[in-house]
């Protein structure tokens, strides 16, 4: 009885995690008039469905040229960060605790320092940086900031990789080729998870993009919330579009993690 009560409570908490997302998706199909009707939140679940918010959101995203920047920058940054992390992190993987602690500390610091503290002096003091396209500057800053995180996320991969390095060395394979061919082939799902997580971090980022004038979908959201009146349906549609890749990444990463945990348990 106690056990089933705990499970029911747990299910309610899990529901609390999902309900806001579902409500956001539901409201993204609602018309502005119905969302701001006197019924308020009580009428949200019974409103008629319309796709006009998505049409308006997609038109606005295309008009402002935000789609390409939103898609290309995260993928480019994720690929660059991961390939550099695989090269750089191999040395860290072989190094001692101090090097690993430095990387962990840098990874945390990279997430804690405010974007304004990074971007403003770079833009002020380096004229050549200002002449580059915002997407390129943003991409370089993202790679620099996310690289310690990518290396840190790849640490378990390097541990698994090192377990098999001996066999590769005996068969005459160089360490670099071992990482590129054997380890990456065996643990591609883990690396895919890391790649998606890094891409998601860039996809979700707004401050650096805003400071550098790099137009993305995430950067558009705060500008839609105004004191003069908010187009709530449009805002929910943009937020939903922004959340779709996050949900897809969540599905992939959680299945990869489950597989990895099962694999680790099996090995143990």
């Amino acid at each position, binding site marked *: 009885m106690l056990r089933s009560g705990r499970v029911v409570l747990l299910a309610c908490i899990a529901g609390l995690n999902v309900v806001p997302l579902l409500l956001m998706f539901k409201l993204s199909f609602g018309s502005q008039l119905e969302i701001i009707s006197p019924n308020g939140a009580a009428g949200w679940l019974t409103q008629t469905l319309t796709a006009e918010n998505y049409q308006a959101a997609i038109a606005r995203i295309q008009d402002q040229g935000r789609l390409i920047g939103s898609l290309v920058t995260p993928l480019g940054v994720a690929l660059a960060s991961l390939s550099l992390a695989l090269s750089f992190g191999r040395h860290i993987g072989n190094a001692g605790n101090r090097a690993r*602690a430095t990387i962990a500390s840098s990874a945390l610091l990279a997430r804690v320092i*405010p974007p304004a503290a990074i971007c403003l002096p770079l833009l002020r003091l380096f004229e050549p940086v200002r002449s580059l396209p915002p997407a390129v500057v943003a991409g370089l800053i993202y790679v620099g900031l996310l690289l310690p995180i990518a290396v840190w996320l790849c640490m378990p991969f390097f541990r698994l990789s090192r377990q098999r390095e001996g066999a590769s060395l005996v068969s005459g394979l160089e360490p670099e080729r071992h990482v590129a061919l054997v380890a990456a082939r065996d643990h591609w799902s883990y690396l895919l998870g890391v790649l998606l997580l890094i891409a998601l971090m860039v996809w979700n980022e707004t401050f650096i993009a805003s400071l550098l004038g790099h137009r993305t979908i995430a950067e558009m959201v705060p500008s839609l919330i*105004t004191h003069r009146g*908010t187009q709530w349906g449009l805002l929910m549609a943009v937020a939903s579009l922004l959340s779709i890749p996050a949900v897809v990444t969540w599905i992939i990463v959680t299945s990869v993690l*489950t597989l990895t945990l099962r694999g680790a348990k099996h090995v143990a």
Partner: protein
Amino acid sequence: MRRRTSAATVLACVLMVAAVVLPFFLNVASSFYAINPFEKVSRFVGFGNFVLLASDDSFKLAVSVTVRYALASAVLCALVSVAVAALVPDLTTLRRVAPVLCLPLFLPSVAVAAAFSLFLDSQLGIPAIFSALTGETYSVLGDPERTFWAATLLDVWQWAGGAAIAVAYARLASGQALRDSLRVAGAPGFVVFRETALPSTTKAVVAVFLFRLVWNLGDAERINALTSGGGPFASARVMGIWLDRALFDYGDLGYTAAAATLFYAVAAAASAVLVWVATHVRNGEDRSRA
């Protein structure tokens, strides 16, 4: 092949230094000047910017809000994660609920904030239902104190699930052999808990608290979108938002750089201390195992 790998490693180092370390020194250098970035005029002021910061009420408020927010959010996150972790009966259940518990972690902060700014709207959202029921007007995002707590609770909502997974895993996965042998020996439940789950759970909760404390120092995107830049009377204007707006509010890059230097130093020290504690604990565990 070896040469190409070296080049990639050098490039990685250059990018990391340029993005993480270089801005600190640029901020330090700029903090000794009064710089008008729009007219490109600068004047040496020594420690003048730091002296001004010490008497700047908006800066002091931002520091106080950041500390309060980081502490409140870290404490609540740790407490909620313990409560949720206590509900998980075994590893099988944990494996089933873990994906749903960690879902909010993946969601974009600004999308979550946008959705909650509608849910918490005093005329359209959930407060309107309470207002209709009681006849009193409830305003969440229009009230300074409630805005601060709304931002804090939203952070807890987004992070507590992931933290609960870590705490539950620490509670259930550690000391299984010892737990089984204590049960076979007929030890009471609290003795089994004290000897097996308590040490690992305590470490996990402390880790969650410290990690959230440091991480929250730089939290700004979600609060900025939820409160439209810090809420009424800047009640939720954390340092991230303050720095983002300072250049436009004061028109002095040197002044902004002085604040950024201080914040940078605190964040770097906090990150280093957290990692040092984690490494120290892990090394201690390794030694005790050996």
